[in-house]
């Protein structure tokens, strides 16, 4: 390392002179990777079966973690939007249930639950020893209040995006329309018993009733429309949850300090405090090396290319696990007509077909033309992911029982087959310019777009273009979009054909409706395949859907159809790479988060 110091110095001189020379250098915008988190799950909470070290955990100590993008500062579980806020909330709040490594639900602050015979209701027994950070006891009324807030007429207008949690409850429409003050969907039977009543037998009732509660005694007098701006949603010291840590102080955009909550229901957390620092991804590793930060965890971990470097740090432990999401190359099947855009609705029957890639053979040819394995690579020093990722052939997280890794078609890299498919489809180079023309002999150019932020995804864009040009497809690659402008552009523009995007998936249920139903906002390709729709709906339609084997079967068919029709080609799932110092003990990540059981984290005393 020493001999490289002068290089480092030289680099800094060069960079600084560059920036200084052009008059007030601009800070690089910190990459924003997982903005498209589908939904956060308050998936921390406790586990009684902790593994004990020989010496045993000790109390005390402060650790520092790093995020590359600052939270928006919305620390209300029913209103937060970004994965960075959720990173704070996973320390400060608890949800009723938690999920184990097989994604089965387990008790958390609810101890047990029971379905009624008609499967329309589910009753939860709550713990009677759970307290909010300000000392008030957590009761069934808080749960009722939370769902009333989500279903409130003003909720969506105030920026809330989680109505879907309440939408299937009895009386939701009437209550949301403001016709009545009664919301019979959630009822507190007594202080520690709460029952959810669904309009129909609900296959995903546990997921829908597992929303993180907010404190009624704080928000009771706050109109829902003003809740997002209320200090208890935004300010350090005012945010109240039931989690093991409370947000004690913050310097907005720089540092967020969480201090332990001594009366936590699973026992006093070992650590005194956890500090989140917001630092650029590029300097995280040097901070880790010097010990200025103790861990790199959610939401992005560190980069695969840096693996060897982190491995060389003697005081650091690496945790590698499968991502709970994927990166994709989407095909824009349809466009939303102007009238529907104005009204803000997605009506699949009105979609306008995109003729440039409407032929499934063309999409399949594209899928065969892209060398996905090269993107992932075989190992260190190979590919964009240095071997730290996996192929996926269906858009359901492989950690779920519903993922089918056998039947959906796998598109291997096969240039000859791609050429053949395109020739068959009538896309032939008639004017000898090296690129294929469409079947009518007109110029055929596909417009591809991608967002900035995820460095590996950005680098993959020109490589994918190269792969496509190798089979004679002319691609117009636009400059990367800022993530905030990207989703809007995807929805409204009618010139795009291919798009890159990544999804982090929810752990609640494998149901892909949020991303791939024909009328889902996130279905940017506006994929509308009536048969696939039928399957997707059948998979959550009672009574058959209460049988998991049946759902598995239907989802398998749906995944096969997905791969056949290709609303998107799943490019890869990049492994999550977490790193923490050896001083940090008791780390027990879940399949989707580093933050699980953070009340059990502890710090080896310095002299060890």
């Amino acid at each position, binding site marked *: 390392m020493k001999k490289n110091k002068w290089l480092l110095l030289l*680099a800094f001189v*060069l*960079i600084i002179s560059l920036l200084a020379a052009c008059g007030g250098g*601009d800070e*690089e915008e910190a990459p924003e990777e997982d903005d498209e988190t589908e939904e956060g799950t308050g998936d921390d909470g406790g586990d009684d079966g902790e593994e004990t070290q020989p010496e045993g955990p000790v109390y005390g100590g402060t650790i520092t973690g790093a995020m590359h993008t600052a939270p928006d500062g919305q620390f209300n579980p029913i209103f937060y939007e970004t994965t960075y806020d959720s990173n704070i909330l996973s320390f400060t709040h608890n949800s009723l249930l938690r999920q184990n490594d097989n994604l089965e639900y387990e008790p958390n602050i609810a101890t047990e639950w029971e379905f009624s015979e008609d499967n329309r209701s589910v009753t939860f027994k709550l713990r009677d020893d759970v307290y909010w950070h300000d000392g008030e006891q957590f009761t069934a009324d808080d749960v009722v209040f939370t769902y009333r807030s989500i279903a409130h007429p003003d909720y969506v207008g105030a920026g809330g995006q989680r109505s879907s949690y309440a939408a299937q409850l009895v009386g939701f429409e009437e209550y949301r329309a403001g016709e009545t003050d009664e919301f019979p969907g959630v009822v507190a039977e007594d202080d520690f018993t709460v029952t959810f009543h669904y309009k129909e037998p609900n296959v995903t009732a546990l997921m829908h009733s597992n929303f993180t509660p907010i404190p009624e005694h704080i928000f009771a007098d706050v109109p829902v429309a003003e809740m997002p701006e209320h200090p208890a949603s935004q300010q350090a010291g005012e945010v109240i949850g039931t989690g093991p840590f409370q947000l004690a102080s913050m310097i907005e955009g720089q540092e967020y300090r969480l201090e332990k909550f001594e009366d936590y229901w699973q026992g006093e957390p070992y650590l005194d405090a956890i500090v989140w620092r917001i630092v650029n991804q590029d300097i995280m*590793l040097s901070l880790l090396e010097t010990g200025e930060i103790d861990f790199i965890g959610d939401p992005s971990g560190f980069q695969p290319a840096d693996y060897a470097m982190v491995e060389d740090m003697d005081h650091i432990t690496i945790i590698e696990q499968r991502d709970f999401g994927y990166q994709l190359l989407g095909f824009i099947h349809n466009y939303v007509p102007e009238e529907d855009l104005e009204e803000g609705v997605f009506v699949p029957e009105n979609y306008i077909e995109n003729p440039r890639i409407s032929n499934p053979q063309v999409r399949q040819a594209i899928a065969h033309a892209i060398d996905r394995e090269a993107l992932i690579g075989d190992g260190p*020093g190979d590919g*964009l992911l240095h071997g730290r990722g996996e192929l996926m052939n269906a858009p359901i997280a492989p950690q779920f029982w519903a993922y089918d890794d056998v039947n959906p078609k796998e598109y291997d890299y096969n240039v000859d087959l791609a050429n053949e498919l395109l020739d068959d489809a009538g896309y032939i180079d008639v004017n000898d310019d090296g690129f294929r023309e469409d079947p009518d002999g007109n110029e055929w150019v596909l417009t591809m777009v991608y967002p900035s932020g995820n460095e590996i995804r950005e680098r993959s864009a*020109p490589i994918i273009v190269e792969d496509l040009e190798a089979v004679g497809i002319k691609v117009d690659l*636009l400059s990367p979009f800022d993530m905030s402008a990207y989703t809007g552009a995807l929805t409204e523009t009618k010139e795009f054909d291919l798009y890159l995007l990544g999804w982090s998936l929810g752990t609640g249920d494998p149901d892909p409706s949020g991303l791939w139903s024909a009328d889902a906002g996130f279905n940017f390709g506006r994929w509308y395949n009536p048969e696939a729709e039928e399957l997707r709906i059948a998979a959550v339609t009672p009574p058959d859907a209460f049988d998991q084997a049946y759902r598995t079967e239907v989802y398998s068919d749906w995944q096969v159809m997905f791969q056949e029709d290709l609303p998107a080609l799943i490019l890869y799932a990049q492994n999550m790479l977490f790193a923490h110092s050896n001083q940090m003990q008791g780390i027990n990540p879940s399949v989707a988060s580093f933050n699980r059981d953070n009340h059990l984290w502890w710090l080896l005393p310095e002299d060890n």
Partner: protein
Amino acid sequence: METKELPKEMKMDNPQGDDNKKIKKGKTPFQLAMGRFMKNKAAVISVVVLLLIIVAVIAAPLITSHDPTESNLRNIEKGPSSEHYLGTDSSGRDTFARMLYGGRVSLIVGFSAMIFTLVIGVILGSIAGYYGGRVDSIIMRFADMMLILPFLVLVLVVVSILPKVTIGIFVAVIALTSWPGLTRIVRGSYLSLREQEFVLGAKAIGARDFRIIFKHFIPNAIGPIVVNATLMMASYIIAESALSFIGFGIPQPTPTWGNMLSEAQSIRILQNNPEAWIPPGLAILVTVLCINFIGDGLRDAFDPKSSKRS
């Protein structure tokens, strides 16, 4: 300075062709300037180095057989070898080829933006400086308005709005945002020239405005114009590098020295692969230094009063 230029005006009106000996003795101001320039070692060496760089980037296809945009994911971040003189970057593209072709882009951007600015600046400056009055106020107020807009921020905004940034657009954006500086310089020179006797003379014999501007004003203001244009070219090359470095310049896979440097944002490449970023960094450094030395040399040559730094 203006009094020194007077003989030139007189000479031009002097139709004798057999005056060679006389002229040899009394060189034209331009020749005098060139003489002074040639005595400036730093400037002359800079011209030679810059010419070498220009030849190298023009002859890129002869020097390397690699395509600078062709990636090879099976061969990334490799060190120097006989196949890849400077190794490959993180997408498996040949760094040496990218150096050469990237130099093309960087120099083209710098040079064409400079020419573009020059055209706008000289035209607007001439109009404002020569006609004065209301035209002058309008143009100069507009220039002031452009001047208060922070260049880099403006370029960032424009570049992020545009769906696709090409070299042409990039040049236009730079030029359209940085013309006021040159315009003011041109206008300033004209204001003092306007009061000179030879201009009055030219007007008196009925020369058209166009002729006066081109025959009398521009040659007399050429010094500051050339000097500033040269220095501007250097700053444009840096601007392009800086914007590409932070990801707002010419997008990949088109190579430029700036977006090659952006590889070094990763601490790993910074430490382990110096061959990936030192060459483009040095290339920018050397090119910009050369251009600045040439600019300084030109200024000293055109304006002898400022050159006497003992």
